[in-house]
């Protein structure tokens, strides 16, 4: 069953169409991968679903459980169960990790915060009092962000390049988190180019010029991407209808 539906979503940024009459359904409790060349609109799609400022002036509609999200602000979308893991998580000068993780947590107890840190492979004794600031490595920040999202127990997670800028240990923890999301029944939409990450997805969508060019198994879509999209022949111009792959 579809938890999230996009109908004919078009969004222009800087006078340029980034999403072009994009329509797609995402199934509840499944792990979906979004694949596409740079500039295809992947991050824009994630930001639009989250309703971030600057991404709300689209046409078409986005439905969560069949209900339109038009006019629904970011925080309300989050309270309805949608959240976003940034490609480059924000740093918060002075903010303690326990305060950050508990902020959006369903259960705000110290025990739960410690449990979340453990689940992403960070020793609570060492990390709970640390600050979410520049003293953390890129991999640590990614893991702290995941801990805060796990604590939310969200219904739908948008993950923008979860594997970028991290080491092997952190990558394994991201795989663990994906398994946790799956066990919780959380729907995952992740943007990635990594084959290692793609292996953890159940379905893949190929995004090109702001449209879904194709969808199907991870093997089929990633194979098409490797054979036809590197380099990108569309150069990020809108693709004519005749170039779309047959359904």
């Amino acid at each position: 069953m579809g938890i999230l539906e996009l109908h004919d979503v078009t969004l222009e940024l800087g006078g340029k169409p980034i999403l072009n009459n994009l329509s797609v359904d995402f199934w509840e409790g499944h792990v979906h991968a979004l694949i596409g060349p740079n500039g295809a609109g992947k991050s824009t799609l994630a930001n639009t679903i989250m309703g971030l400022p600057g991404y709300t002036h689209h046409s078409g509609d986005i439905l969560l459980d069949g209900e339109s999200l038009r006019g629904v602000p970011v925080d309300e979308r989050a309270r309805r169960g949608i959240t976003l893991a940034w490609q480059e998580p924000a740093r918060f000068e002075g903010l303690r990790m326990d305060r950050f993780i508990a902020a959006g947590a369903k259960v705000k107890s110290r025990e739960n915060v410690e449990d979340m840190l453990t689940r992403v492979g960070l020793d609570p004794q060492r990390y709970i009092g640390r600050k979410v600031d520049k003293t953390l490595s890129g991999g640590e920040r990614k893991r702290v962000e995941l801990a805060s999202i796990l604590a939310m127990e969200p219904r739908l997670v948008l993950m923008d390049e979860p594997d970028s800028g991290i080491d092997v240990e952190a990558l394994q923890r991201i795989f663990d988190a994906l398994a946790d999301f799956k066990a919780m029944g959380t729907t995952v939409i992740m943007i990635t180019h990594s084959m290692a990450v793609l292996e953890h997805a159940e379905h893949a969508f190929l995004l090109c010029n702001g449209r879904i060019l194709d969808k199907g198994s991870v093997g089929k879509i990633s194979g098409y991407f490797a054979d036809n999209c590197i380099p990108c022949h569309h150069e990020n111009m809108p693709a004519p209808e005749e170039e779309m792959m047959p359904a």
Partner: protein
Amino acid sequence: MSDVATARALLESLGAFGSHFSGDDVAHLEVNGNEVVGAHLVPGLDVDVEQIDDGIEAHIRLHEGVRIANPVHLCFGMLPTEGLQHIVMKVDVEADSFASVQAHCTFPNAIDITHKMDAVVNIAPGATYEYFERHLHGAEGGVLVVPKTLVNIGEGARFKTEFELVKGQAGVIDFDYEADCDAQSTLEMITRIIGRGHDTVTIRETGRLSGEGARAVLNSYLALRDDARAEVYNTLSASAPYARGHVDCKEIVQHRAFAKAVPVVEVSHPLAHITHEAAIGSVDSKQLQTLMSRGLSEDEATDLIIEGLLS
């Protein structure tokens, strides 16, 4: 009201911070207006207090080599709605000693109160003196806070001070700290202030690194909202080889608030090095969006970001 009752009322106004009242090994002094209403000392620490018309003159002496394990608590405040409290303080921290002082300043009912402090702090070689001043004001402002302190930091000595006003309305703060730093000494000054309503905050912090290898950091963190105004003048000068320093001012401005930061760095020795950084602006949008994407409202997210900045 008896002295004990007054002391209790002052401490109760501090909330959780006032829980230091008991404990034989905890030194403390409570002053309401110009009256000492409570005191307890520990070996190696002398406090002589004289009453003056509008406050007290206090001489605090920490004996050579004495290291006080527990923080020393000073509570200055006024329970009435108006008046002047003038604290004249001389602190002598003798060689190789250590003390950490937590000064709590509480004016819970203030409508028109002036809290003025003139302090001279002498820290002898090898000693460490920490002074944390936390203000708790009422919701209406009504307090003029004028702390002026001159600190002499001896060779290899360390001075750390923090001034915090994050609860209640600040009123008017005119803060002026100066420190002279001898060789291999360390100076750290931190101010954390939330300004609301029509609060007016002026911070002047000056560090003079005149000794070889002296080090200093001046940090100011302010969050301003409504019609609050703040001006921060941080000056750090270095005139000795290997003196090192950094000036940092961060201010978050919301609504109609106004902030000004003037970091001044002066170097008169080629082997000295001082840096500065100042940032004034609204709440970082990515931080805000991250927290809002966890379900926090904009106000909740802003408060949490400010809590971190001022921590």
